[in-house]
């Protein structure tokens, strides 16, 4: 009658009361919640409030409510041009990462799991390095006396160094290089979850390999493309170090204007530009998700 003795042993175990359970757990949450309140929520709220004040030459702000900062941020050609440039470069980066990242992700999803793991680690390693290091690599490559120009001149392709650094193109290359791993990883993770029998079902019912891809693989990997695109786009929108080091003073993204406003002690303007940047990023992501669509395919039973 061994099963009976097992049952009697099991019953009290399920009634054992662990130390951390139910409402007692809330106390463990308190320190991190307080920390977030003090260092994330309050600073953000204060920042939003400050965006509605005027600037002050003596303090941080004048304490008088105004919408002037927003009127300028959204009305002034200078700021609007920067917002547009930021959006354009971010969209271009996202599109380039999708185009470059999808084939690589597709390749990674087709190889064996052991080789895939090694190649994914190779993508994760750069993400753990400081952004400045990765930007510096491009400066070394693209600079006036950089490696690309050295090679071009020594091979006789040109006798004058070509100006590649401090252009919009350099910023774009830097952003793509730094953000591409996010896209590849996101798409790969979705591709490997697609049931291979779906592709077989498509093939056996008459779909050529190209149509299997277009009708099954591509639509089912949309979730990975959306999450990859949102990640890349969001980070690109708030770029300032990459654009500063690779684009120089001519490529003024919203991030650079926020930096400049802060550096000239115009806190309210910096705050208003930040709010505009966050809201336009959020709105663009919403549009992006609408555009690429969400995977609902009906409610689960």
């Amino acid at each position: 009658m061994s099963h009976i003795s097992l049952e009697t042993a099991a019953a009290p175990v399920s009634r054992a009361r662990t130390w951390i359970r139910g409402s007692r757990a809330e106390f463990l949450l308190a320190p991190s919640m307080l920390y977030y309140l003090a260092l994330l929520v309050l600073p953000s709220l204060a920042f939003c409030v400050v965006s509605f004040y005027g600037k002050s030459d003596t303090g941080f702000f004048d304490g008088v409510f105004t919408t002037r900062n927003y009127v300028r941020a959204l009305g002034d050609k200078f700021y609007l041009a920067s917002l547009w440039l930021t959006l354009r470069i971010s969209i271009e980066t996202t599109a380039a990462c999708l185009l470059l990242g999808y084939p690589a992700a597709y390749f990674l999803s087709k190889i064996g799991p052991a080789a895939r793991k090694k190649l994914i680690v190779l993508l994760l390693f750069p993400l753990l390095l400081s952004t400045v290091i990765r930007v510096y690599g491009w400066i070394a490559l693209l600079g006036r006396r950089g490696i690309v120009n050295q090679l071009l001149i020594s091979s006789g392709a040109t006798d004058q160094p070509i100006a590649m650094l401090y252009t919009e193109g350099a910023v774009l290359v830097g952003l793509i290089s730094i953000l591409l791993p996010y896209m590849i990883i996101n798409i790969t993770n979705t591709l490997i979850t697609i049931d291979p029998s779906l592709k077989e079902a498509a093939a056996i019912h008459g779909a050529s390999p190209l149509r299997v891809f277009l009708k099954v693989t591509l639509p089912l990997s949309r979730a990975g493309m959306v999450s990859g695109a949102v990640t890349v786009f969001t980070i690109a929108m708030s770029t300032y170090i990459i654009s500063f080091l690779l684009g120089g003073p001519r490529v003024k993204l919203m991030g650079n204007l926020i930096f400049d406003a802060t550096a000239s002690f115009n806190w309210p303007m910096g705050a208003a530009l930040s709010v505009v940047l966050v809201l336009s990023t959020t709105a663009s992501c919403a549009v992006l998700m609408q555009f690429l669509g969400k995977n609902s395919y009906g409610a689960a039973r």
Partner: protein
Amino acid sequence: MAIVEVSNISKQYNKSWAVDRTSLTIADGSFFSLLGPSGSGKTTLLRLIAGFLRPDTGEIRIGGQVVNDVPPHKRNIGMVFQQYALFPHRTVLDNVAFGLEMRGSGRAERERLAREALEMVRMSGREAAFPRELSGGQQQRIAIARSIAARPAVWLLDEPLSALDRKLRVEMQSELRSLQQLLGITTIYVTHDQEEALAMSDGIAIFRDGRIAQQGTPLELYERPVDAFVADFLGSANLLDGTATRAPQGWCVDIEGMRFPLARDANVSDREQVRLAIRPERLDLLRWDGHTAGAGLPASVESLVYLGSDLRVQLRTRGGSRLIARAPSRSDLASLEVGHEILAVWRPEEAVVVAH
């Protein structure tokens, strides 16, 4: 519709032969089952016929044409997958119309044929639903509709009923069979359930270790298994070892000191060690006092189990062999009790000599 011929096909996986020099001919319009335990090669053979795998040796012909180098999408096959493999991002109608869309039918045409297929599986009215909104049984029907909507030449079914509960499974068996007869489509059905194979098929091939152990009609396989594996796999069989003897009235076999006549057509030689396979329901049990000599194998009742309308009796012979007999529970055997002595008897033609 087409005849499917497989000749001398082999496929190696990780240095072992998943399918080993197998040949098979499946008649036009017939329902053929590939039966065997898991890992026996039946699924691999199905995937070779589908074109998902390329054979290492041999030829596959569909409708007389060699298809070894024809990719799956050009083989004109319909297939039902084990876990249905419905496209989650397409509605029921778009799932069913998939094959027609790939074959280039116009929208109106493919919707008409898809609705027709849905009607055949009695799923009209759920055209706009997505697969995940349907129950397992409903998804199954959609998968069936998708596989037949484009009227393929060959229909492959890969253990399609294994995920259903028993009641639904039996219901679907007869539906699949009548659908197959309605369409007259050459059908290859992979299953590990012998009852399913026996109930549905015109022909069965039993797989073992990548090779076909025996093929034939359900009746042939059941009544004349070539070896113990086939006998045991197609419904359990009692196996009795004995020695063949030539007696004046014909071939006999000596088992545990008793002599039993063999069927007239038994192919044995004198003093040969033989193994007999006898179906549990073909074994008759006679009440016995345990002493008087009788024409039967003496045994005692070890245990009795009532399984619905069946009575199963487990016996131990004097020589230590274990036998199982099966009888309707309303038969006179119902009065048996554990410990009773009985004589097990059978008609000579019910005992099949099988290979060791």
